[in-house]
């Protein structure tokens, strides 16, 4: 029974996953913060990311859509930021990470997806004023442990 209690264990476990497993786990990280993104395109690409049988062309198309969404969501340099919208941007970024071919991302795709998902929660907490530090990481530890134990 695998148990993950901190980021060192979390990263080490992620590093042991192959490309397909990293994508599936990353998709799980994105799914848990999907409600923070109002752009419906991300929900659609997430279905592709979470499909173990997705073809490379379908994945490439989904990645393209996810990237386009991040450019539509990001706060441009010098414009007034909206942290709720920014949460959506980080969800889209997490989706981009999940769909990026493993060889293109130094350090794998699941870790950046996890980080972006955490940033989405942080962005929301800036608006709500809740102290949610660490909640999303704990959630990710459980998700990964669940995946490894399944």
């Amino acid at each position, binding site marked *: 029974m695998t148990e993950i209690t901190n980021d060192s264990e979390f990263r080490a476990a992620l590093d042991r996953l192959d490309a397909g497993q990293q994508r599936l786990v990353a998709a799980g990280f994105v799914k848990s913060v999907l409600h923070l993104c109002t752009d419906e395109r991300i929900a659609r690409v997430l279905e592709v990311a979470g499909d173990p049988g997705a073809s490379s062309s379908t994945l490439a198309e989904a*990645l393209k859509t996810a*990237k386009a969404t991040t*450019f539509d969501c990001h706060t441009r*340099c010098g*414009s007034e930021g909206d942290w709720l919208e920014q949460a959506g941007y980080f969800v889209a970024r997490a989706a981009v990470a999940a769909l990026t071919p493993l060889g293109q991302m*130094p350090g794998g795709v699941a870790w950046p997806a996890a980080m972006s998902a955490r940033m989405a929660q*942080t962005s929301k907490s*800036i608006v709500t004023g809740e102290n949610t530090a660490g909640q999303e*990481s704990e959630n990710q530890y459980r998700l990964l442990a669940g995946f490894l134990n399944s």
Partner: protein
Amino acid sequence: MSASFERGINAFKEQIDAPVAAFFSSCVRCGLCAEACLFYTETGDPERTPINKLEPMRRIWQQEYSFWGKLASSLGLSRPVTDADLTEWETLVYDSCTLCGRCSMVCPVGNDIAYMIRKMREGMAASGHAPEGLIGATRRAVTIGSPMGVKLPALQAQIRHTEKDLGYSIPVDVEGVDYLLLLSSMEIMNFPEFISAIARIFKHAGVTWTISSEAFEATNSGIQIGVSEIAAELVERIVAAAAKLKVKYVISPECGHAYMAIRWEGPNLIGRPYDFKVVHILELLDELRAAGRLKTSGKETQRLTYHDPCQISRRGGVVQQPRNLMHEIAADFVEMPETGTMNWCCGAGGGVSSNERADEIRLKVFNRKKKQLDQIHPDAIISACSNCRIHLEDGLEEYEMDIPVLSLTETIAEHLLDREQNEGQEP
């Protein structure tokens, strides 16, 4: 920032100092600056030639300060600059110039055209001819302290979450440390992992540092819009924070124009030297590397290239340091053709990215970067400016190029040697 045509004309006259007058009188109209400017090369539009962007200011110089110009004016033979002229030039001065300074590099008589555009913007802003996006950013920088409206509680939330992930604290308002770290709002909002990367590197290298809760913003929209009073006020905030915290150094982060503003323009804006030294983060990382305090392990096997942010490399002089760092982490580092001080701008600096009106031309001129990349086919691009990074991603998407864009500081942090696990071993 109350503006009027009369105020603008007066501002133009005030901006015409000895260098500007010398530059105008020595221009030989050779047109070399045109071929150095991506807004000209990618559009073919002669209006976008760098020296033409200065035409209203040149006419004012000629009519007010040159013998023949004054004579012609007195005889009614010259056409005064009108508000309509400034309206026409607004898009040339703000939308079609990133202040990248490539034109200044090729001028055979040594005219610093980017310096003059910067001066030109003072007159444009004073006359009410600045883009809405930059006006809003400047207003927020003065009233909130950040052009993007990032307030201290937002930074504190990012810090809290970073601390939780790292398992140790991020120093804020710590007196007597060596370094004060500035951040751009782009980093706080779009790339908060930069804070984590810095914390890990500094812990690894044993650097003492802090963030100031009173002056954390590195950018200076007063310079981009062209209002020296505001630019000076923003610099003064950093100077006051550095004095209060008694730091020896102020670190400019991965933001091009922030470095230009605090390192090179700052002392001139406030009219006195600093009591501290300003270093760009890449300068510091390379110093730490050279001193053996920053050790990395493993190298990326992908084909990596480095995009030089104009204000850091060409205008700022930080050229070799990023290359030293790239060689630490990249087994296959390939330079773009025309690189370092002659690199081509991404097309979004100098306030262009905050100006929605410029979106179309910004993406059009990215074609120049595409041509560079097409010659080397990198697997990933590394850079050191959040604004370049976002725009590179945007441009690559526009031109359907599938190349990830990464931060050099963050990539270095990913390669830090684990000292505990590798004690006694060479990297």
